[in-house]
């Protein structure tokens, strides 16, 4: 039983990273109706920036807020400069741009920092805590808490602020929102900025555990996409729950299902998603939509 709980906790810790990335993907999908394939690479780039700031002597207490601001500006800038010019060219054009951003960001990261895997120190130290029979690292606790707080703040901004109401209005019905005086262009840029900031926190938390390299979030992106599919692209909460489920289930399956472990662990969430989508194509929390033929 203790081991089961330990595996669950461990799964939740990695699941929080998937959840944050999935939330970022869902935010952009709701705003622009497209998948940002580069979301993982943005997070990786953010982790490298955090590493550079930290090695330059900046305290982690400052690295986090600076990283959030830089990521926000970067995300909003990408939307303004690279996405907006093709926003009326159809979903395939947007997908192509985000795929190009994935490749481009990966190449730039590799060009600047190289392709070797680096060891990144944990912003939370190397302490280990014991609660009963369970063991927690400071990195897992601190990282988990940071991701959780980030997602809660993001949720609060969307749910309880006038800005959130405008963002929701643009996601729900862009034409109607424009006619109410809402600048959809500004809101889309803000949405991309928030998504990049949330993703940056995911990258920062993942790097000390997974090792810092341009491939840091490659698997995480796939699992985050799976999590968003599982939870429903139209639901921010669904994306978060999907991320946690993917983290826990893949961890438990690799421990308890014979023959699954290592790379094969990746198959588990996709198998579960396949089964869920057979029953609920819109995902666990998503809203079904119809398209007139």
């Amino acid at each position: 039983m203790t081991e089961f709980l330990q595996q669950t906790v461990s799964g939740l810790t990695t699941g929080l990273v998937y959840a944050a990335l999935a939330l970022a993907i869902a935010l952009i999908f709701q705003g622009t109706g497209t998948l940002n394939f580069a979301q993982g690479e943005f997070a990786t780039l953010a982790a490298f920036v955090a590493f550079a700031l930290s090695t330059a002597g900046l305290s982690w207490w400052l690295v986090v807020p600076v990283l959030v601001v830089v990521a926000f500006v970067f995300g909003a800038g990408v939307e303004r400069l690279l996405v907006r010019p093709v926003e009326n060219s159809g979903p395939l054009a947007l997908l192509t741009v985000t795929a190009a951003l994935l490749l481009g960001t990966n190449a730039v990261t590799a060009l600047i920092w190289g392709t070797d895997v680096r060891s990144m120190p944990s912003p939370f130290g190397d302490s280990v805590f014991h609660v009963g029979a369970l063991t927690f690292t400071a990195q897992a606790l601190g990282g988990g808490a940071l991701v959780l707080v980030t997602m809660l703040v993001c949720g609060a901004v969307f749910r309880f602020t006038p800005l959130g109401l405008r963002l929701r209005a643009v996601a729900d019905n862009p034409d109607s929102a424009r006619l109410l005086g809402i600048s959809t262009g500004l809101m889309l840029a803000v949405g991309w900025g928030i998504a990049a900031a949330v993703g940056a926190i995911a990258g920062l938390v993942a790097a000390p555990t997974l090792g810092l390299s341009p491939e840091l979030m490659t698997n995480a992106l796939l699992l985050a996409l799976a999590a968003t599919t599982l939870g429903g692209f139209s639901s921010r909460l669904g994306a978060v729950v999907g991320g946690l489920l993917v983290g826990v289930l893949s961890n438990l399956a690799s421990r308890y299902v014979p023959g699954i472990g290592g790379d094969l662990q990746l198959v588990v969430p996709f198998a579960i998603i396949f089964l869920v989508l057979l029953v609920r194509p819109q995902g666990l929390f998503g809203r079904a939509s119809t398209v007139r033929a």
Partner: protein
Amino acid sequence: MPAAAAPPASSAESPPALGARGVGLSFAGLRALDGLQFEVPAGGTSAVIGPNGAGKTTLFNCISGLYRHEGELLLHGRPLGRLRPHQRARLGVARTFQTPALLDGESALQNVALGAVAHSRVGVLDSMLMTPRRRREEQATLEQAFELLRRAGIDQLADRPVAGLPHGDRRRVEVSRALMSAPTLLMLDEPAAGLGAEEARDLLREVEEVAGPGTTVLLVEHDVALVMSVARRVVVLDSGRLLAVGTPDEVRADPRVVEAYLGAEDVDEPAPERLHAVSEEAS
């Protein structure tokens, strides 16, 4: 001509609420609007009528800024040029749709509160930092939104998601949202659709009263009786062209309108009498 139909003395000096100068638009070779030239006086209610496909909603979309068009539209004498929809909304242009375009995931109160965005002084930074100014404005907005719902008789629905509301209530929420923006030009696209005759007239009376003298209401409406009973200026379109413009009496007497709108051949009694009868019935 009834005194009520005459524009108030003050509006003789003020520019028209809406002016169209050679407004035209084509869709893939199809001429949807063709050289429209008319004015809508400031204040009160005016209407755009015409058969299906006449270009009424297309004209609304041009005024809203959803479609780029030829010619010029003027709002209270100011050319709208290439202003985008949200910029026009901030100048006082508000509208409703044939099928209410509400945010289905939100409550009736939040939908109405969104109408205040056009004149909000809370910026993105205020909103993110939750400044006292934001809190004050938000509170005032919610109170005003609730008051509009109360006047529309649906304050008991304030916290209900609009997705499950009946059509009539959704329309009232949408009209309240448009009023929330304190528009100078309020365009209502078929507000009577799905409502009874009396209910539709009540809605329009309520809209005029709540909007006040500074707002010009412009209707697109199929219900001729309703239009003739409330409008001071009627713009008649047919196949994208301007057929007539004038007071209800002038339009009613125009043989081109009678022929295009009711069809002159296949009726037993002369069409002008039918139009007149409709108007009598309405009043």
